[in-house]
């Protein structure tokens, strides 16, 4: 055994159920009403339920529940990205509990 692990571990008798919220950034390609297309570095599966958060002009974070309608790869340098089509429904924000900072960046 290498010295990779530093702490003693405790093993559950039976695996414990848990939830994992993963957040990734995506770029808006188009947004029309309740339909949006974003470019993401992560692929999605049709039917996946996502929470979309965007910062509005007044610096408020607006949340939408989204369902993945389609996902197609964009094969271009420097890395493969994915064009994800979303069907949106307004949702309540979880009070920044899990939000990654939403920023606007300039295109070089």
């Amino acid at each position, binding site marked *: *055994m290498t*010295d990779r*692990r*530093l*702490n*003693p*571990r*405790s*093993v*559950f*008798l*039976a*695996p*414990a*159920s*848990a*939830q*994992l*919220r*993963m*957040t*990734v*950034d*995506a*770029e*808006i390609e188009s*947004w029309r009403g309740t339909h949006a297309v*974003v470019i*993401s570095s*992560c692929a*999605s599966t049709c039917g*996946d*339920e*996502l*929470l*979309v*958060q*965007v*910062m*509005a*002009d007044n610096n408020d974070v*607006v949340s939408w529940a*989204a369902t993945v309608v389609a996902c197609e790869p964009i094969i271009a340098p420097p890395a493969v990205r994915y064009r*994800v089509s979303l069907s949106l429904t*307004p949702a309540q924000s979880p009070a920044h*509990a*899990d*939000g*990654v900072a*939403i*920023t*606007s*960046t*300039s*295109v070089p």
Partner: protein
Amino acid sequence: MAWRLPQRVSHEKASVTIVSLTRTKNIRVYDVSAGGCLLETRESLPVGAVGLLSIDIDGRRRQEWIRVCRVHANEGRRGTCLVSVEFLPLEPAGTDSLRGAMLRLRAVKSRARFPALSGRSSGDPGKSEWAVDTPRAPSSAAPHADHGDLNSSCNAIELATPLLNGSARACHKPAKE
């Protein structure tokens, strides 16, 4: 709803708007320590991905930011993946922190049995206290079929018994050859 996209979304204005996409996955947790835990997911996660782990222990929800360290395809188990994650100490470990709960239990245990612990900074590998105290499993004790390599280094399960409310099993270091 009175809301509109920021004007800077226009590509003609040489800027883009970044949104965050949050996905909630149902997972299972096999083991936990003060530094991380082992998860089982139905789909692979990218190494380096960051997420918020939520788990109910003793009727109390505990959360921790994690980062994916290693991913192993769990062949033979419905195509699931075993994911090793480490806790991210982004903020002090509070009462609802999974990392904090494990650290506190370890500290209590250490104070009770090992008043003068050595640490990694002293050249100790960080496991000697457990090697002294933890009884070794007999050679006939076969490790778990799917986690033999993991169980080989897992010890001190009594440390977490109060936290896991009796839902933990012993996992001892195997005797050295």
